[in-house]
């Protein structure tokens, strides 16, 4: 059974279609990154999974049931974008309230406060919390009742680098425990090591979905090889440029060559065999590069947004 099954989803608001023929699945114990520009349909997809919206066409199944089934909701954790709580309640009171609503054991409240690093502020009113603290309280709220499916909408917004690292560590731990996670974000750096698959949405259409390796293969984006301490770097540049490998010099004895698919190992062999470089750095296309590639392929999204 898949944790989430979305088949042939179309979502319309009035005459505007915000999701076109979306097919998306999340396996149990998998972490899926959902990426896209503002208005791409990320939040709408989340709302469909949460059962807050009914699709105009198509079917959504969550943990094998209808998404608004109370049994599903008891096993589901959700961190909304820009989460807010009742300002007059303290952190602990807030979590207690939500724990009761979810029938989660009360002792989890203090454990979770400890886990997200809010134990020292548990008695303070949420009104006095910083954005990062609210975000962490939101995360604790999402983890109430040990959910089997976790939806995180922009979880790292407002978090400092250390808290972001902690969050990703937590995601890894939860994945090991078998929790299925959808992580919605437009902060790309740092996230790639923590997801199994990425899905890229643009203008309401799924542009690509798959593991990073398969997306790289599909996109055919080149790797970049940087070598430093190469003697006669100009000669290398001429030779490779003539052979069709775009090469540029970086200072006196360093250069960068773009290795279009399949050429990477050949170029490295040549370089190591004859060039005797001091150091070599290989840059695989990052998630950001892939994202940019698929966005550009989807058309000029910015122009579209400008008109909207």
């Amino acid at each position, binding site marked *: 059974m898949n944790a989430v099954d979305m088949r042939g989803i179309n979502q319309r608001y009035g005459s505007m279609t915000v999701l076109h023929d979306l097919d998306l699945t999340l396996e149990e114990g998998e972490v899926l990154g959902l990426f896209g520009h503002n208005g791409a349909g990320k939040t709408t997809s989340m709302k469909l999974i*949460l*059962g*807050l*919206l009914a699709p105009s066409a198509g079917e959504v199944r969550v943990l094998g049931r209808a998404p608004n089934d*109370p*049994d599903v*909701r*008891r096993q*589901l954790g*959700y961190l*909304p974008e*820009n*989460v*807010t*709580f*009742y*300002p*007059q309640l303290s952190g602990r009171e807030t979590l207690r*309230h*939500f724990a*009761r*609503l*979810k*029938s989660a054991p009360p002792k989890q409240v203090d454990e979770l406060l400890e886990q997200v690093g809010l134990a020292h502020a548990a008695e303070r009113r949420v009104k006095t919390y910083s954005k990062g603290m609210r975000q962490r309280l939101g995360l604790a*709220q999402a983890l109430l009742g040990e959910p089997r499916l976790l939806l995180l909408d922009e979880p790292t917004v407002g978090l400092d680098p250390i808290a972001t690292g902690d969050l990703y560590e937590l995601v890894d731990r939860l994945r090991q425990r078998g929790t299925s996670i959808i992580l919605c974000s437009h902060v790309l750096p740092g996230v790639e090591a923590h997801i199994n698959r990425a899905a890229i949405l643009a203008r309401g259409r799924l542009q690509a979905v798959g593991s990073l390796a398969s997306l790289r293969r599909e996109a055919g984006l080149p790797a970049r090889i940087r070598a430093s301490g190469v003697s006669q770097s100009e000669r290398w540049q001429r030779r490779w440029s003539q052979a069709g490998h775009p090469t540029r010099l970086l200072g006196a004895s360093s250069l960068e060559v773009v290795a279009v698919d399949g050429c990477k190992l050949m170029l490295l062999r040549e370089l190591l065999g004859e060039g005797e470089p001091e150091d070599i750095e290989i840059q695989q296309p990052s998630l950001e590069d892939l994202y940019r590639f698929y966005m550009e392929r989807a058309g000029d999204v910015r122009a579209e947004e400008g008109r909207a």
Partner: protein
Amino acid sequence: MNPIWHIARKELSDGLRNRWLLAISVLFALLAVGIAWFGAAASGQLGFTSIPATIASLASLATFLMPLIALLLAYDAIVGEDEGGTLMLLLTYPLGRGQILLGKFLGHGLILALATLIGFGGAMLAIAVLVKDIQLGLLLWAFGRFMLSSTLLGWVFLALAYVLSSKAGEKSTAAGLALGVWFLFVLVFDLALLALLVLSEGRLSPELLPWLLLLNPTDVYRLINLSGFEGGGSAMGVLSLGSDLPLPGAALWLCLLLWAGASLLLAYRVFKRRSV
């Protein structure tokens, strides 16, 4: 335990925390005691006059006050949660919209009931202790009826507030609508009815007119509290129509209950259609 109760519990503790309960109770107690002792000051008397006169004055005051307090307490119940961002979160929890609404109603309803009991009940105790030769039975009966019907009136307006709160897109809209509803039922309705009486010059069937009073919960409330006393000639204005109403007292209670139930049902339907 039941999610309805968890929601109610939060509303109740909010009511304690922001001192709503305390403020309403004190207000009720002060007004009741003030009216009991100084209500007859206009006619040159000081001190407690009679139970019917006290209840009549209290009821006409509560007619204004109770709806206002109930609307103030509940106008932001739904739209406030929506603006605060917690409504969407609540809706992803294993509880239905009906349960959220009922929980709020239970919590707010308890606040109103407690405030009525503490405030007016306290005044009743003061009268029982301080006034000599009071008919305790009559006092208890009259005040009991008054407190129960006041609470019920408050509940009707709580439910009406939820309708507005579920409909309105912004808190300020809901507040404006709440004031409008208050104005309509407390002031405009009776004036309109009077105008209708005068303008129709008796052409309207006299059997029909009294029934129109049932379309206004505050009039039903006043009818409940003015009836049942010896020499009930104290009815004034449109309420004198009520004496022509061929209805037993129980039907008036039922009518008030119906108002609360129907408004709550309407609120649920409106809330169900609300998108988050």
